[in-house]
């Protein structure tokens, strides 16, 4: 099967998350078929494919966000550092602290910028004092490339920022919990080109500190930010490989058709 054949392309990075024969169902409808894929540590992995191909669904299985959808059912094995994340021993709350997520539409809480970032650390008890929290907030916002823009108005509402700033705030909020993996579900689809460029720049800077998985509709974006690219089509993983190979020398006909814009 094509998908199993392309599980581990010639990559050197150690494996952070691994999926084996994953199937996802929404009620009777199967959204993901036999997907096996490895996500490398400290790398950016891009999922591309036409709308409805299951790439977002698959992304949401990696931090078990599909648990919130009543009709969703996941089969197969997904591991984080070798631990099965769907086993009963895995605490889903801990899992999501280790595997953070940034959504398609920026969704800051209707709280101050400071409180948006402090939310996660406070829940997980990462700060012992107000001063600790200040440090975490500043570091997270610096990493998210937002500190210089908001340092004088940390008490303003997070929802008052521009769309691009909101999205960087959401990234900062995810970073504040000190995750190991960050999942990004089309993080730029609601943003203008300048804000998009800033997010891409940010992804470059975050690479090496976190394993990043990004779902995108924009193939240029995948080519620019990722080291490895997976092409999904109709719920299956068609091809997975080093990004430059996928874009210059795809093995599969469907991949070639998609990246050359023949459909999708």
């Amino acid at each position, binding site marked *: 099967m094509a998908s199993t054949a392309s599980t581990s392309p010639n990559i050197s990075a150690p494996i952070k998350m691994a999926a084996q024969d994953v199937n996802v169902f929404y009620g009777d409808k199967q959204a993901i078929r036999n997907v096996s894929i490895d996500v490398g540590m400290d790398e950016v992995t891009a999922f591309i494919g036409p709308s409805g191909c299951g790439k977002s669904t698959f992304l949401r299985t990696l931090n078990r966000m599909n648990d*919130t959808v009543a009709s969703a059912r996941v089969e197969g094995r997904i591991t984080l550092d070798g631990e099965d994340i769907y086993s009963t021993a895995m605490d889903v709350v*801990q899992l999501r602290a280790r595997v953070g997520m940034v959504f398609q539409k920026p969704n800051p*809480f*209707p709280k101050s910028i400071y409180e948006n970032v402090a*939310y996660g650390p406070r*829940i997980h008890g990462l700060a012992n004092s107000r001063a600790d929290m200040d440090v975490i907030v500043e570091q997270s916002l610096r990493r998210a490339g937002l500190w210089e823009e908001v340092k004088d108005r940390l008490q303003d509402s997070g929802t008052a920022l521009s769309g691009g700033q909101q999205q960087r705030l959401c990234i900062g*909020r995810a970073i504040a*919990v000190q995750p190991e993996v960050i999942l990004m579900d089309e993080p730029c689809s609601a943003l203008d080109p300048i804000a998009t460029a800033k997010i891409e720049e940010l992804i470059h800077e975050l690479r090496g500190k976190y394993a990043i998985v990004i779902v995108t509709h924009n193939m240029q974006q995948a080519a620019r930010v990722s080291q490895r690219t997976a092409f999904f089509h109709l719920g299956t993983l068609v091809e997975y490989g080093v990004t430059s190979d996928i874009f210059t020398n795809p093995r599969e006909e469907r991949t070639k058709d998609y990246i050359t814009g023949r459909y999708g």
Partner: protein
Amino acid sequence: MNAASVWLLIIGLAAIAWLSARARATLLEKSAGRLATHSRAHYHGAYVALWTLLPAALFLIVWQNVSPALVTNAVLTAPEAASLPADAFSRSTVLSEARSIATGHAQSAFNPQSQALVAPYRSAITRYDIIGAVLTLILAFAGGAFAFTRVKADFKARTRVERLVMGGLLLASLIAIVTTIGIVASLLFESARFFSMINPLSFLFGTKWSPQSAALGYGAEHAFGAVPLFWGTIFIGAIIAMLVAIPLGLMCAIYLTQYARPAVRQWMKPILEILAGVPTVVYGYFAALTVAPLLRDFAVAVGISGASSESALAAGLVMGVMIIPFVSSMADDSINAVPQSMRDGSLAMGATKSETIKRVLIPAALPGVVGGVLLAVSRAIGETMIVVMAAGLAANLTANPFASVTTVTTQIVQLLTGDQEFDSPKTLAAFALGLVLFIVTLLLNIVALRVVKKYREAYE
């Protein structure tokens, strides 16, 4: 010719007008072509029918209100009226008796003078009825004919009918508003009479309420201190009832929106809504016959002094239960209005469900919840039946929930039931209380709706 047959007649004329105008317009349509005529035939029909009906109907309504006075004037000029008594009261007695006989509502006259006036009355009534009917019919014909001449290919009957429909709808919506204004006006008028007898300050800030002794004439000025009533109302409606309704309603909404499986939600929500539909008098029974005695026995058993079989606590607890559906459905709506992405955002950071509810959903939904609570308070303080049955009549200024207190609505009921004279401060006090209640609930509603609206805007 009586009024009913005139009404039937003009309705019949309108129907004929409709048919004939439609027939004419159909002919026009056939000769000129459908697209060359502006409006469909039935719009022309409706236009002419409305012109036939509306002016005539308006005139008839006015006439039916004006003609009795005209009839009476005519009777007074008749020679038989010369012997009428001079003073206004006995004169109008005789006149109304004669009228009753003339219209067939009474059989025979008690007063011989009335008997003499029956004949002139009859003739005057007949005369004015005929005049009215003829004028109505003329108007109907004139209106119909005017409209009928306008049935042309390019006449915009459709637009005109649309405008008339709009006018009709506007009128319908104005009725509710005009009624409200009327209610407020009557409240204001009667309250003004009350405040001309009793100083408003001693009413609003006095602490002694004993309208019964005032009726007997002892120091009326100081018997209408309404503070114990306001306190009782707030104690029961805004404190005890809310202590029950806010936490329970909120928790209920959280369970239903966040935890309940769809199957559970499906049967629990309707049951809650049934709770909102139970007549308040039934809650009243429950409070007075079940809850109040239990509370009194409990209070006596643990040695609380001042326990009464009609207690603030009984009325407040039951009222709180009654209010739960209001609070929970408002809270339910506002929690549901918080975007799913907020919940996802929080869950994706590793927050548990209850952390998400406590730190994200409730703060975000809070304005809506507060709005719901304010609406519930305004409903609770205006509630009457439960407190009439369970709260008692003694105007005590006490914070002991086991003691009997009374509320504004209870006292209004007390002041206005039975035979009352409407010029004593005792009765008029009910209107002053009603006015205060009206103003308070109005303000609460305005604030609540503002809060809810502002919050809605924040997410849309």
